[in-house]
C-alpha cells in the first residue's frame, strides 16, 4: 500500500534537495584560505535533504506493508487540515493588512483587519467583537506607539495622534 500524500511530500523534499545542490554549485567554490567556500555548506544541506526525501519516499511506499510507520503516527500526521476557505481568507487579509499598514496607519488598518478576520471566522458576540475590533487595536497602538515610543504609522489619523506620542 502506498501513502500518496507522503509520497508527494518525500518527492518534494528530494527535489528541493536536488535544486539546492544545483543552486549551491553555482556559488563560488572554495579557495586556499577557505577550502569549503560559500558553496560547501549549502551543498551538504542539499545532500541532507536528498537523503531525507529518499527515506520519506521509502517510508511512504512501505506504509501498510511492514511496520515502518505506526498507524498512530500516520493518524497524527494526517490529522491537521491542509487548506480551507477560512485560512486562505486569513492569509489574504493579512497580506492586505501588511501593505495597508503605512498608508492607512496602524490604528485604522488594524481595526479593518480585525473586523475582516472576525467576519471570516464568524460566531462572535457583539461585546467581544467591539473589544477586538476597536479596543484592542487602540491598546496595541498605545502600548507600542505611545508607551514604547515606536513611531508607528498613523495615516490619516496623523493630525489627531501627533500630540500623544511620548
Amino acid at each position, binding site marked *: 500500500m502506498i501513502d500518496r*500524500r507522503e509520497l508527494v*511530500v518525500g518527492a518534494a523534499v528530494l527535489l528541493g534537495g536536488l535544486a539546492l545542490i544545483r*543552486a549551491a554549485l553555482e*556559488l*563560488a567554490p572554495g579557495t586556499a584560505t*577557505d*577550502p*569549503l*567556500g*560559500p558553496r*560547501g*555548506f*549549502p551543498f551538504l*544541506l542539499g545532500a*541532507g*535533504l536528498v537523503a*531525507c*526525501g529518499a*527515506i*520519506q519516499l521509502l*517510508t511512504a511506499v512501505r506504509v501498510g506493508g511492514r*511496520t*515502518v*510507520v505506526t498507524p498512530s*503516527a500516520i493518524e*497524527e*500526521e*494526517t490529522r*491537521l*487540515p*491542509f*487548506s*480551507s476557505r*477560512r*485560512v486562505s481568507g*486569513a*492569509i489574504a487579509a*493579512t497580506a492586505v493588512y*501588511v501593505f495597508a*499598514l*503605512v498608508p492607512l496607519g496602524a490604528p485604522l488598518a*488594524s481595526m479593518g*483587519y*480585525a473586523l475582516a*478576520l*472576525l467576519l471570516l*471566522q*464568524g*460566531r*462572535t*458576540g457583539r461585546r*467581544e467583537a467591539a473589544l*477586538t475590533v476597536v479596543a*484592542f487595536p487602540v491598546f*496595541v497602538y498605545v502600548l*507600542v506607539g505611545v508607551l*514604547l515610543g*515606536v*513611531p*508607528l504609522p498613523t495615516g490619516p489619523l496623523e493630525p489627531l495622534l501627533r500630540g500623544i506620542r511620548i
Partner: protein
Amino acid sequence: MEDVLRGIIAALSLSGIAAMIVGLAWGTVGGALPGISGPQAMALLLPLTFGLDAATALILLAGVWTGANYGGSIPAILIRTPGTASSAAAILDGYELARQGRAGKALGVSLVCGSIGGFLSVVLLIALIGPLQQVVLAFGSPELFALTVFGMTVVSTVSGPSITKGIASAIFGLLLATVGLDQIAGMPRFTFGRPELLSGFNLIAVIIGLFAVSEMLRLIAEPPDRPTQVDRRVNTEFPTLRELRGLWRSTLVGSVVGMIVGVAGAGGPVSSFVAYGEAKRWSKNRELFGKGSMEGVAAPETANNSDQGTALVPALALGIPSSPSAAIILAALILHGVQPGPFLLERNTELLFTFFGALLLVQVLILPVGALILRLCIELVTVRPAVLATAVMVLSIIGTYALNLSVADAAVALLFGVVGYAMRSLGFSPAATVLGLVLGFIMEGELRRSMLISLGDPAVLLARPITITLLVLAALVLLRPLLARAVAALRSGRASAS
C-alpha cells in the same frame, strides 16, 4: 556567589522589577490561553523588547517563560485543557481535584512546587555554566562544529512522529541561516538580487511567523470548542507548611527528573509525564494517583519548571538551544547584539548574572503574581478562539513591523506563518526549523574554520576523540528511530520466513 548577588541586585532595579511583573503576567495569561504556548508568548513579546536594554529584555523573557509554565496549568486543572503541552500531566490529578472542589489548592500546589523546582534548576544552571564554559573554551573549531551537530539532536524531541521530517525541517532552518552575505567570503547567497536580503532573514520575524502566525492560522482553520463550564469562584489556596512536608518526596522526584530531562533537552512534556510516573512509583499513597492526589500535581508541576534552568545550560554555555524557549532566549541575545557561544559568559558576565538573578527572583514573584492574576486567566480561558486568533495576529504583525519599521519584516512574518502552517499540516516541525536557524551561523562558521585548519581534509572531524564521540552520539540519537524500525522490520521478516 558574589556575581549572583550582584545579578540579583541588578535585577531588582525599578525597570527590572517592572519587567519581571509584566513578563510573569503576560506569560501566565499566554500560557493559560489554549493555542498560545510558552515559546509563542515569548516570541510575541520579542519585538517589543527591541527598545529595551539587553538586561531588561532578558528579565522580561525570564518572567514570560516562568509565567507560561504556570499559566498552562490553570486550564489543565480547571477545564481539563492544558494551556501548554508541558501542563498536560497536571490534568491527571489536577482536574480530579477540581471536580472534588479543591481546584484552588491544586493551583496553589502547582504554583509553590513549580516555584521550588524552578529555583533549584536555576541554582544548578549557575553552578554548571562556569565549569562547562571553561571546558568548552579549550575546544577548537572541529569540536565546536561537532557540538553544534550534537545540538541538533534536540530535533528528535521536537519533531513529532516523523524524525525524517524533523531532520528535514532542521536542515531547512540551517538553509535559511545561509541566506545573505556569506560570513567568511562576504559573497551574497540565495538573495535573488534583493538588497534587503543581504543581511539575511530577520530572525525575529521568522520566529514570530513560524511560532505565532502559523499557530493562529491553524486556530482559524480548525478552531477548538470554546469551553463554557468554568468555576469562576476559584481562588488560589497556598499549601500549608505541613501539607508541603507531605509533598517533599514528589517535589524532589519532580525536581530531579525535570533537571535531568532539561539538560538532555527532552522538553517539558517529557519531564512532567516521567516525573508523574516516578512520583507514583515512589509514593506511599500511590493508590490515590489519578483520583485527585496532591502529589500527582506536585511532581509534574515541579518537573515542568525544573527543566527551565537546566535547559539553558547548553544554550548559554555552548550556544546550543535545547528547547524552543531557549532558542528564543538566544534570539533575544542576538537581537541585542550579543553573540551566543562559548565566549558568552566571559564577555557578558554582568548581563548573564543579571539574567540569572532575575530567573531566581521570578520563581519567588510568581507566587503573588500567579495568585493575583488567576481571575483574569479564568475569564480569558473562555475567550472565543476567533477573538484570540485575531488579537494575536494583530500583535504579531505590528510587533514585527515595529522591529525596524519595515513592511518587509511584517511580510516575512506572514510568509513564514504560511510556511509554518503548511509545515505543521504536512507533519514537519517549525520548532526544528527555528533551532536550525539559530544554530546555522555557528555550525557553518566552525565547519569552514575546521576545513581551513586541516587544509580541506574532512578527516579532521573524525581524528579527534571529542569530535568523533559527539558525531557518533548525534548520529545514534537522530537515527535511533530509523534503526529501531529497520531492526523491527528485519525481525518480522525473519519471523515470517521461519
